[in-house]
């Protein structure tokens, strides 16, 4: 039987606010345990939550970015359960009425093997605001508390936007493409720092399988807290295989929450549906319903950066870039900003695009650096391209200049000078040099005259070699052609 996997994602996006969602405590990562736990974070008797407006603006931004309905009125609810890192004994979340409703994102699924790349629309079901819990730290090593578990409430109350999709994805590749797209988008609109290692972007993946061609969804299992795209891919692939094998062996899938173990590459049941809590959701009486007016939306919209799709279309129209190039350059805001800065500094768009996607990206990938950590600034790249454009240096020479700048040198012209890369464009000098080459290679000349076109290229090569690469190749071509025609 042929099987089809059905995948939906729930992504916890940590919002980039200065303070927590319901208190004034800092959200900075990495502080000493419990130094960012104010009386609200600790849930002392008598404390009350006050909603952080910045978090609401982040949610509105996201809603606008995925063309979603933004609720005029949404409600915060209490999700009740006991856990040591949940100080109030309930989490404030949104349940029945979330702030962001139905929306959609378009993903680019890359080519794999003989399958070509394609685009697909993934529907967003909802996105809601909620607070994060603290952290349990097991096996403490301090003397007096050795082996005990500790609670760090620095993270308790950090604002999250939980983004839920429809079960629209049909492969691990699609799920990863969606996650990557979302990851780029939340950074693009500046609501999340995207740091997956620090847990700023965490994905839960719901996976089920069904016989291909059938409608009814299979029983799903939820893979919790995947914090890298690689693990997501592995986890989904493993889980899919496991579910298919289980069903083919005559077993049944039970609804459960599972954890992925990166060391074994397997998923393991954390809790079954029967063990699930009754969360006793009810509207939080400490918080008024959240009202979002048209004016609020308009204000946030005015502050929004140009969205990737809009920018891509503009790149095509304004700079004459291909759809592929425009799409690549708008895959992250920093990359797009770098490209635009290069063009604004005087470079032509097409060569700028080629260099950004070519040499610059290759170097960054090799060194695993983000674009904003590139040692070659957009301004330097623009100067380099200017020197190619005005024939000061050849493309090949430019690569040497680029390497030098990457290694820390600053001034393009100084590097050209130092490395002696300046192109010879004095036609008198080139003519004299070509005369020497022609005189030294009578056999090649004869071959060319006998109709062997290849001999021409060999002569160009000899001329370039004679000039130590500094002769303007176009000029060499032209003069050589003229001389041979005589």
């Amino acid at each position, binding site marked *: 039987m042929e099987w089809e996997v059905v995948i939906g994602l729930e992504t916890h996006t940590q919002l980039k606010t200065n303070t927590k969602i319901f208190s004034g405590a800092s959200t900075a990562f990495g502080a000493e345990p419990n130094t960012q736990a104010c009386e609200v974070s*600790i849930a002392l008797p008598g404390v*009350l939550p006050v*909603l952080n407006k910045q978090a609401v603006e982040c949610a509105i931004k996201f809603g606008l970015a995925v063309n979603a309905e933004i609720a005029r009125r949404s409600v915060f609810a*209490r999700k009740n359960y006991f856990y040591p890192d949940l100080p109030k*004994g309930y989490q404030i979340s949104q349940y029945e009425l979330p702030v962001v409703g139905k929306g959609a994102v378009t993903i680019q699924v890359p080519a794999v093997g003989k399958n070509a790349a394609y685009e697909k629309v993934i529907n967003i079901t909802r996105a809601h605001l909620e607070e994060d819990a603290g952290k349990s730290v097991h096996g403490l090593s301090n003397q007096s508390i050795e082996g005990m578990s500790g609670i760090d409430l620095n993270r308790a109350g950090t604002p999250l936007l939980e983004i839920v999709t429809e079960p629209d994805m049909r492969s691990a590749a699609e799920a990863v493409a969606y996650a990557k797209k979302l990851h780029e988008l939340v950074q693009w609109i500046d609501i999340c720092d995207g740091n997956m290692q620090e847990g700023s972007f965490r994905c839960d993946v719901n996976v089920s399988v069904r016989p291909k061609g059938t409608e009814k969804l299979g029983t799903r299992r939820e893979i919790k807290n995947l914090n890298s795209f690689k693990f997501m891919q592995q986890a989904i692939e493993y889980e899919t295989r496991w579910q298919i094998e289980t069903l083919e062996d005559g077993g049944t899938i039970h609804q459960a929450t599972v954890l992925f173990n990166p060391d074994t590459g397997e998923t393991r049941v954390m809790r079954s549906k029967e063990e699930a809590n009754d969360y*006793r*959701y*009810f509207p939080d*009486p400490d918080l008024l319903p959240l009202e979002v007016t048209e004016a609020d939306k308009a204000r946030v919209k005015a502050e929004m950066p140009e969205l990737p799709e809009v920018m891509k279309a503009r790149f095509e129209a304004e700079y004459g870039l291909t759809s592929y190039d425009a799409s690549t350059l708008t895959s992250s805001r920093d990359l797009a900003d770098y490209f635009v800065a290069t063009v604004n500094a005087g470079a032509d768009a097409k060569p700028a695009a080629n260099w950004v996607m070519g040499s610059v990206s290759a170097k960054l990938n090799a060194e695993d650096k983000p674009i904003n950590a590139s040692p070659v600034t957009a301004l330097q790249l623009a100067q380099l391209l200017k020197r190619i454009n005005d024939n000061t240096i050849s493309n090949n020479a430019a690569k040497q200049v680029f390497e030098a700048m990457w290694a820390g040198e600053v001034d393009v012209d100084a590097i050209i000078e130092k490395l002696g890369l300046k192109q010879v464009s004095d036609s008198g000098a080139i003519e004299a040099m070509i005369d020497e080459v022609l005189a030294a290679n009578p056999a090649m000349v004869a071959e060319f005259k006998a109709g062997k076109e290849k001999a021409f290229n060999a002569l160009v090569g000899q001329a370039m070699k004679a000039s130590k690469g500094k002769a303007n190749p176009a000029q060499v071509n032209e003069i050589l052609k003229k001389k041979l025609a005589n």
Partner: protein
Amino acid sequence: MINSSLKTLSQMLAKKEISSVEMTQTFLNRIHQFNPTINAYIALDEAKTLAQAKAADARIAAGNAEPLTGIPFAQKDIFCAKGWRTTCGSKMLENFIAPYDAHVISQFDNAGAVNLGKTNMDEFAMGSSNETSYFGGVKNPWNFDRVPGGSSGGSAAAVAARLCAAATGTDTGGSIRQPASLCGFTGLKPTYGLVSRYGMIAFASSLDQAGPMAKSAEDCAMMLNVMAGFDERDSTSLNHPKEDYTRGLAGMSGDKPLKGLKIGLPKEYFADGLDAGVAKVVQDAIVEYRKLGAETVEISLPNTKLSIPVYYVLAPAEASSNLSRYDGVRYGHRAAEYTDLTDMYCKSRAEGFGAEVKRRILIGTYVLSAGYYDAYYLKAQQIRHLIADDFKQAFKECDIIMGPTAPSTAFRAGEKADDPVAMYLQDVYTIATNLAGLPGMSIPAGFDKGLPVGLQLMGNYFDEARMLDVAHAYQQVTDWHLQMPDLKAPEGLK
């Protein structure tokens, strides 16, 4: 002095007839004398109290005193006060020293008032007799066999026994007004949202409201001036312009000051279940109001009978969640021995909470559970709107509503302790205003068999100033509010 109004005490301090330290010491002496029997206070810290009094004297000397500067008040132990043991009447918080001040406490501190101590209360404000307190019951100063009412029973006894100049309380279903009625003083529950709940330990968040408990309407008005006001730390705090609640009081003397006032008398409040002696006192008070120029009109609040069942779904639902934070993890009681996390939770909470609190947590957990939520919680919320609508209709026909505060006078300690439903009925006339978020008041209107009886006033939203005027008018022509129990020769006070 102990029976003087806040205004008089303020003038005495201003004229330097007495210092705040002397005034405070007078009340502390009375507390030493009577509190061992009455048990109104559960935390005293004389060093802190006298330091505040000293600071107040300096402020008075510097000439920047406010009306309440230097006057000693009792604070219900539901308010967190920095450095004070704050227990909420529970073993759970027996050793909890609050590291911050509630909004109400800061407001009194900023006004230069002196904190005499923290008063006894039903555990987590759940009760109508103060008998659920982990720190023992409180005696009604009018009769030591009787309860003072609850949940603000300690504040009530302290005010009635003149163990403070006045006190604060909180009212979720009648916890200021019912004790005011049973102990014979003036208590006001403001409009929901008028006084910030920040730092006030939550029982039922959508119903809890702090208010003044004092000898007279005038005293309450002066206290409300300090307590009311927007606080951005409480999202349900209302951004209502600051008012002077004493502004209309002076106009309440002379002939027929209440001419034109329409008093609504809800027929449901004078039906079965109301003690005849209480009814008589309330009727007499209404006659007095007619003499003051007011006219009365019969109104109906048809959903009154539903207010108790609705309340006992909603309040426990909120409480079950509000009390989840008492888990033994970060502060509060933790069982000495346990086998694992669940065992630690179970034992800590089983040991830390009393029977009534447990009962309400169980009810609340039940009504919020999957499969029961719609039938109980959601239904109750719908009826809550109907009850609010009753008042909306009623206030089209009248300016203020009057009736009994409680169905009976103070009952005997132990009498209803084993019958929760009988206890819950104590709040039959007060709960509806909490559900609607309206202000309510109880003022002394006389005695039945030697025990005080309160008259309840219910106003429209933000109508506290008018309610205080109406109460003050009555207190200008009667002296029930000046009556105090004779603690000089009480039985059992040896």
